[in-house]
C-alpha cells in the first residue's frame, strides 16, 4: 500500500525509508512504501504492543536491516573516508529501558563527545548544559547502576542530547516513570523540540508527550499509516475500545 507523506525539501536532514518490509520469521511485522523522518519533525509513533514500533525505529537508526527495502540518510555531513557511510549515528535511537555503560554518570554523559571534535570550552559548556537540563548535578560521580528509573531515562536523553543529534527517536520514554521524572523528561523533550531536533516518539497511549507532536504514524494491521492529525487522549481511547470490541490485534 502506497503511503503519501508530506513533501520535504531535498536538502533537509532526513532519513528516508522506501518500500520497507519487515518480517519476523515468516510473519510480516509491517510494511511501508514511503516514510520520511526529517529535522524539525515531531512525530508520535503509535502502535499496539508487538506491532513493531521499536523495530521501525531501529530500522531508521540503522541498527536493524529490513527484510526488504531501502533506508537512506540525506543532508548529513559525510563520514571520514576510512569509515563506512552507514545510517548508524544519524538518527539516534533511545531504548525504552536505556542501557547505561559500566561507570559513572559522567562517563555515560560524555560518551558521545569522544567522537566529536570540540574545543575544551565547547565541551565543558555542553556538559554543563546537559547536566542542568537533566538535573543530574548531584549524581555526576555516582555509579550509573545506582540511578532510579527516572534518573536513568534523564541521563540517557542527556547523553544523546550532548552530541546534538539532528534526529532523535525515543522509545516509550516516560513509561513506568514517576510524575516528577515525567515532568523533567517532558521538559527535556520540549527543549529538544525548541532546538529543532527531529523527534520520533513512540507510545502505545497518548499522554502529555504525544501532545507535543505534530505528526502521527500509526502501525496498524501490518502497515504504517501517516497523517498530520495527532490523536488526543479521547480519540485514542475510543479507537482502542472499538478495536477491543471487535477483537482486532496487531
Amino acid at each position, binding site marked *: 500500500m502506497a503511503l503519501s507523506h508530506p513533501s520535504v525539501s531535498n536538502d533537509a536532514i532526513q532519513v528516508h525509508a522506501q518500500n520497507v518490509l519487515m518480517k519476523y520469521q515468516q510473519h510480516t511485522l509491517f510494511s511501508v512504501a514511503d516514510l520520511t523522518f526529517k529535522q524539525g519533525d515531531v512525530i508520535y509513533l503509535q502502535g499496539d504492543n508487538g506491532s513493531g514500533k521499536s523495530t521501525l525505529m531501529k530500522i531508521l537508526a540503522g541498527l536493524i536491516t529490513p527484510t526488504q527495502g531501502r533506508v537512506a540518510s540525506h543532508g548529513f555531513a559525510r563520514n571520514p573516508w576510512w569509515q563506512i557511510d552507514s545510517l548508524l*549515528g544519524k538518527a539516534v535511537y533511545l531504548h525504552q529501558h536505556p542501557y547505561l555503560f559500566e561507570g559513572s554518570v559522567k562517563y555515560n554523559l560524555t560518551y558521545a563527545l569522544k567522537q566529536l571534535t570540540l574545543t575544551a570550552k565547547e565541551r565543558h559548556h555542553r556538559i554543563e548544559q546537559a547536566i542542568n537540563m537533566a538535573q543530574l548535578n548531584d549524581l555526576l560521580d555516582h555509579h550509573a547502576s545506582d540511578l532510579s528509573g527516572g534518573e536513568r531515562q534523564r541521563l540517557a536523553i542527556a547523553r544523546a542530547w550532548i552530541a546534538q543529534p539532528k534526529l532523535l527517536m525515543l522509545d516509550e520514554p516516560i513509561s513506568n516513570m514517576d510524575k516528577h521524572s515525567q515532568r523533567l523528561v517532558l521538559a527535556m523533550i520540549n527543549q529538544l523540540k525548541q532546538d529543532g531536533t527531529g523527534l520520533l516518539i513512540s507510545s502505545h497511549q497518548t499522554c502529555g508527550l504525544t501532545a507535543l507532536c505534530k505528526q502521527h504514524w500509526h502501525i496498524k494491521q501490518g502497515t504504517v499509516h501517516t497523517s498530520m492529525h495527532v490523536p488526543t487522549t479521547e480519540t485514542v481511547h475510543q479507537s482502542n475500545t472499538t478495536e477491543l470490541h471487535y477483537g482486532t490485534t496487531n
Partner: protein
Amino acid sequence: MNDGWLALLQQAFSLLLSLNPDVWAIINISFSVSFAALLITVVPSIILGFILAFSHFRGRWVVTNLIQTLQSIPTVVIGLLVYLLLTRQGVLGDLKWLFTQQGMILGQMLICAPVMVALSQAAFSSVDRRAWETSRTLGASWLRAVWTLCRELRVPLLLAIIAAFSRILTEVGCSMMVGGNIMNVTRNIPTAIALETSKGDFAQAIALGLVLLILALVLNFILGSLRGKALPRSH
C-alpha cells in the same frame, strides 16, 4: 621418608630464594615465551570472538565448531603439527624456527588462541545487545563500539586471558617437541620439570613446580575475586 621430602623442599626453596641462575633462567624463558604468545594472540582472538558472537556469516557454525575442537586437541599434537611446519622440509622451514623460542611462541599461540576465542565468544554472546546498539547509535565507530563492549565485559575477558595463559604456561608437549628443551634457550618450567624428574634431581623439579603452584594460587585468587565482582547487572 618424611625427612627426605623435607630436605628436598628445603633445597627447592633454597634454589629459588638464592636466585639460582639456572632455575631463574628457566623461569624467565617460560614467562617471556608465554607472555609473547599471549600478547600476539589476545587482540585478534577477542576480535574473532566478537565476530563469531555478533555476525551471522555463512560458515560461522563451522568456524565455531573448529575452534571448539582445537581447544581439545592435545598440546603434543599441536607440537607435532608445528614441528612438521618448521622442520627443514616444512612449509615454514626457511624461518629456521625449530628449537628456538620463536617456534615455541608459534606453538603456544596455536594453543592459547582457541581458548581465548571460545571464551570471548561466550562472553560477547552473553552481553546485553543494547550495549552495542547504544554505542553505535551514539555514533561510536565499529572499533570503539567493540572496545566499549570489551570494557563492559572486562571481567569475563580477563578470565579468558588468564585461562589461556595458564594453559600455555603449563603445557609440556608442544614446548618439548618444538623447543627441544635446550638449556638457556628453550628450556621452560614444564620441560625442565620433566627432565629433572627423569634425572632424579627432584629439588630443581620441586622448585620449578613450586613456581607453578604459587602462580596457580595467585591466578585462582585473582579469578575468584574477579568472579565475585562480576555480579549480574540489574539493568
